[in-house]
């Protein structure tokens, strides 16, 4: 079964700092990859997704992620964070060539941006 690892549990940054959150998955077949974000008091919402093609995908609010198949990674980046980016970020994977058709989530990274 596939699994997702997020190694950064809690990240604290100052505004304008650059962000990179790590995500690794364990599955050798074809996958779709996602980053979801949960702002304080709000529901989980999609930040960006990778299905195929260009491994560098851009999402909302200036976020981007790069899929590196050889490293089984899908790291999230943002060049300059804002206070409003304070949230919890979840990486998720779906294995397309299995019978299981649900997302598997990582444990999440809590990002705190200080003004």
């Amino acid at each position, binding site marked *: 079964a596939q699994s997702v690892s997020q190694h950064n549990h809690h990240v604290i940054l100052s505004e304008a700092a650059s962000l990179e959150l790590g995500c690794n998955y364990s599955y050798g077949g074809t996958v779709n990859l996602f980053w979801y974000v949960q702002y304080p008091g709000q*529901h989980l919402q999609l930040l960006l997704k990778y299905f195929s093609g260009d491994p560098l995908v851009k999402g909302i609010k200036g976020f981007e992620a790069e899929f590196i198949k050889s490293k089984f990674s899908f790291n999230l980046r943002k060049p300059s964070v804002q206070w409003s980016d304070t949230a919890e970020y979840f990486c998720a994977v779906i294995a397309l060539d299995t019978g299981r058709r*649900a997302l598997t989530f990582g444990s999440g990274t809590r990002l705190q941006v200080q003004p």
Partner: protein
Amino acid sequence: EAGVAQSPRYKIIEKRQSVAFWCNPISGHATLYWYQQILGQGPKLLIQFQNNGVVDDSQLPKDRFSAERLKGVDSTLKIQPAKLEDSAVYLCASSLSSGRSTGELFFGEGSRLTVL
């Protein structure tokens, strides 16, 4: 477009009591999921429905948890009897189709359960 609706938002019960959560997915979404999110962890799938049939319930503790999706729309998740370790947020999500799913899910705000 209306999102995924869940109720209640909060519930506090004592152990061994029962509780039920309700979910109304986005209109037209054939697939419905229940996830459990324990504090400090990522969401974990409990059960997945395609229309009113179960696709995956391999991680559902069937001795105490049950779920149904009548008429392929609304769904109810029940816990009976509840244990302390069931304290979590129960998330409902929906998507257009699981058969050719891209995996993109739309989540409700969740139902937070506290078991004392």
